[in-house]
């Protein structure tokens, strides 16, 4: 467990430093690239916890798809090289307050729900266990999420489509 704690700290420090760079850098593409490091750190933390499937999904969905789409969108519209002025929000006090509140609520709920509980040593949740629980215990939430995603997809198509009348 000592090695896990050491690697947790290294990854956590890396993630915090990168997250600060995401909001402080003056270049929008650099911000996205720092975000890659943050998300890769999250994947690493999942792997440290033995949640292999979730960690790999994190890489596939967030780094392989979300960030790529983000970079794609930024580069299609506006992506200058070098520092940009006016990249910071003028009224950034309100989001800062909201982020702090979110952080407080989430840390409280995590600490509260796992109070004193420790992970069993060297547990690896394999993909079969994950799929068994999704398709038996959590089948209703799973179906609800699928319908939600489908609705979002159709909504995107409707918005993007040209009216031909």
């Amino acid at each position, binding site marked *: 467990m000592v090695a896990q704690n050491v690697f947790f700290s290294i990854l956590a420090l890396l993630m915090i430093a990168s997250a600060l760079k995401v909001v402080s850098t003056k*270049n929008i*593409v*650099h911000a996205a*690239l720092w975000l*890659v490091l943050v998300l890769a750190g999250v994947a690493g933390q999942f792997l440290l916890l033995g949640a*292999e*499937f979730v960690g*790999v*999904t994190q*890489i*596939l969905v967030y*780094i*392989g*798809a979300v*960030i*790529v*789409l983000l*970079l*794609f969108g930024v*580069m*299609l519209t506006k*992506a200058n*090289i*070098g520092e940009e002025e006016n990249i910071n929000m003028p009224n950034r006090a309100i989001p800062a307050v909201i982020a702090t509140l979110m952080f407080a609520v989430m840390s409280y709920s995590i600490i509260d729900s796992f109070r004193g509980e420790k992970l069993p040593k060297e547990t*690896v949740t*394999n*993909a*079969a266990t994950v799929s068994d629980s999704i398709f038996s215990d959590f089948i209703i939430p799973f179906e609800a999420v699928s319908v939600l995603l489908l609705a979002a997809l159709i909504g995107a198509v409707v918005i993007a489509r040209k009216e031909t009348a």
Partner: protein
Amino acid sequence: MIDLLALSPAWWQETFLIKVPIGLLAVLLPAGTIVYLYLFKAISFMQSRLGPMEAGPYGSLQLLAEVGKWIQKEDIFPSKADKFVFAAAPFVVLMSTFLLVVVIPAGPDALFVDLDAGIYFAMAISSVSVIGILMAGWSSANKYSLLGGIRAAGQLIAYELPLILAVVGVVIQAGTMNMQGIVLSQAEGEIFGWGGIGNPFILTQFIGFAIFMIAVQAELTQAPFDMPVAESELVTGYLTEYSGIRFLLFFIGEFASAGVFSAIAAVLFFGGWYVPGIDPANQIFNVIGPLVLAAKMMLIAFLIFWFRFTFPRFREDQLQRLAWKFLIPLSLANIALTGVLKVAA
């Protein structure tokens, strides 16, 4: 493999002294072989010429000469480029290739890591190389490079879906995402009760194999899907500004990932390191397995390069239409059919 030598090295010794050098070899050797056999020789024979003949017997040392040339060239940075991103981009692409090779098994014990979700990991890691390509395209401060990068991103997003969906059919049939498990289920499979050659999934998943190879062709941006590097329109796209050793890194990345994807296809559809007639638990596979896998890999890589040399380039809209309107529905139908037959059988 290590057990055979009756050694018990520490974790760091095993990683840095055994696995890392073998991993480098497993990426670079197939890449070099592919470049010499296919890019230098096969294309030359298809075009009725000899190809490189001067360096070494039949030009076999040509690649070493090329590498030497690239290494000694000046490492040029465009003056308006974003220096750090420009310098880092080839490493991101190469890292994704090197991480791919770790999940490919080459024998019962000859493997780097035995991940439970091996093929899923491979698909996830292969999508990271897009970020390197976008970094290269953007940081070059060149319109052609940016266009190439954006084309590459659009193409790779579109073809990632059929690639993963084609793999799902194999995963359903094998009942596992573990690469070793996929090899064993083919080795121990039976065709209508006859187990003579096992059950290579190319027979039952032929549609999946075809979709997989088309998607791989597009993921590797090989012709006919080479719009991101189209030299006649975009002056080789995101590679325009790269020279010297950084171009070499991109070049290695391109051919090494062709080799790695061929090896993945060999594992998924051709039984990986298994050859019929020998019990898959036999220890001899730790020795001949890597060779068998390499032979299957080279055959599949020949398919990739055969297409590359003989097909004209698609247009951008044809490329997108092929992925979204044809390959993805077809692969979904393949998954549904495989699922039904799996439950019925």
